[in-house]
């Protein structure tokens, strides 16, 4: 049981890292980025190609993260512009349609150019024992990176003036403009950050299992579920929800079967909407 829970936490930290990039963009711009998972896959393929070209793994990973961040920034500066000018239901719908289109394009191009593409980062070393449970080195690395990213994000949003400016735009965009904060600048930075986080997810996930070219849809759906449960716009909420959902996933896979986990996770999201419509920590406070 202890091993199952610990596996769940490892999985959940990955979920949290995945969800946080989705939740920030939604909290800020009202855009549910359906291309999110594809941006991660794009980063994975960039890293894999770079490694195949002889670039050291760490440097290749950095290149992949930067490529994903640039993709996010490019999306914000081009296709998302008309979305921000809309409001209410139109805004959500236009955001969904445009990002879905981007997802199709990225997926199409990647499967056409590199149908068997996959990223697998092997971290050498003997399993490390944590609380008496042996964990693969790759899992430990992935968890440490996720925790470090969580800490960095919490410091950024909690203690820096720009981080607070981001939260202020989530809470009251007009109020933010009145104190001199440019929502456009904040959105561009957050879209780039979100893309970078998707790239980081690609790197950490490939440390535990190969990330294949068709993984995008699953990543997007998982990110969506994590952000709904955590509360849209909340960093701490995304990681909290990620860990909880990771444990739920791991436990249900162990006692019922792997086939059930997608349904259980979706059920958790539905239940959250019904019981706590704002999510665990919704509203931009975390």
């Amino acid at each position, binding site marked *: 049981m202890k091993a199952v829970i610990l596996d769940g936490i490892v999985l959940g930290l990955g979920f949290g890292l995945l969800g946080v990039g989705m939740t920030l963009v939604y909290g800020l711009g009202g855009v549910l980025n359906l291309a999110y998972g594809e941006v991660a896959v794009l980063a994975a393929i960039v890293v894999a190609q770079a490694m195949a070209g002889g670039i050291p793994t760490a440097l290749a990973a950095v290149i992949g993260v930067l490529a994903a961040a640039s993709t996010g920034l490019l999306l914000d500066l081009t296709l998302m512009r008309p979305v921000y000018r809309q409001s209410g239901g139109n805004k959500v719908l236009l955001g969904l349609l445009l990002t879905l289109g981007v997802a199709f394009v990225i997926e199409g191009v990647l499967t056409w150019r590199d149908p068997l593409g996959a990223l697998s980062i092997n971290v050498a070393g003997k399993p490390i024992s944590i609380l008496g449970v042996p964990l693969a080195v790759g899992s430990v690395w992935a968890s440490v990176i996720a925790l470090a990213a969580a800490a960095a994000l919490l410091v950024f949003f909690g203690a820096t*003036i*720009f981080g*607070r*400016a981001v*939260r*202020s735009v989530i*809470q*009251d965009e*007009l*109020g*933010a*403009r*009145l*104190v*001199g*904060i*440019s*929502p456009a600048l904040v959105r561009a930075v957050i879209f780039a950050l979100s893309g970078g986080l998707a790239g980081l997810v690609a790197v950490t996930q490939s440390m535990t299992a190969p990330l294949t070219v068709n993984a995008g849809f699953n990543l997007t759906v998982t990110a969506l579920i994590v952000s709904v449960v955590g509360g849209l716009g909340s960093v701490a909420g995304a990681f909290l929800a990620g860990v909880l959902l990771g444990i739920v996933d791991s436990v249900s896979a162990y006692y019922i079967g792997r086939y059930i986990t997608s349904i259980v996770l979706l059920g958790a999201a539905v239940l959250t909407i019904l019981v706590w419509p704002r999510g665990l920590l919704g*509203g*931009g*406070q975390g």
Partner: protein
Amino acid sequence: MLEVSTLAAGYLGQKVVDGIDLAVRPGEAVAIIGSNGAGKTTLFRAIAGLLRPMAGRVMLDGRDVTRWPAQRVAQAGVAYVPAERHLFGGMTVKTNLTLGAYPRRPDRETLESVFEIFPVLRERLQQRAVTLSGGEQQMLAVARALMGRPRLLMLDEPSTGLAPKLAKDAFDALVGLKGTGVTLLVAEQQVPLALSVADRGYVLENGRITMEGTPHELDQNPEVRRAYLGVG
């Protein structure tokens, strides 16, 4: 400091205010008085950059700021406090004040001077803004605006939602503020309150400025007395 000429603004192609000429000199306190729906908020939104003017010009210290977005006007030293305040409700009083100084870090001196005007905020620092009373929220809105050390402070209906006694207190605080060198532009439908703080006033009626004068002149004007002071 602020010069507005032949300004027209409105919504969906309909002009709400038209042909507005007004000027505010450094250190002055100017009141815009007018009833509900006269166009005070539309005029303020157009000056603050929240609403793109349909015609006319807004000059700030000799610079044309007519088409600047609100955040840029704010950075240039104009702090606009709308009647709905737009505080960051889920954040603490302290964070609201910190953000008022954006993009700089808040400096001690400004913070202290703000606490001097609104001592109650010091006791509420760790409280979330939504938990404040209406009067305290109004104080926080003005305090947040002051944290950016604005040269021009624009207040839209600062008495909104306040009991008469609190509204009086709010305006007393504004009188205190005048001594600190900040330039004030206040829109208010409660004319006696507005005239209590102003050096000069404009009367806005149906989107046009119909009168201008000192508080004494406006107070003695039979039109103003009949329309706004309920004296006939």
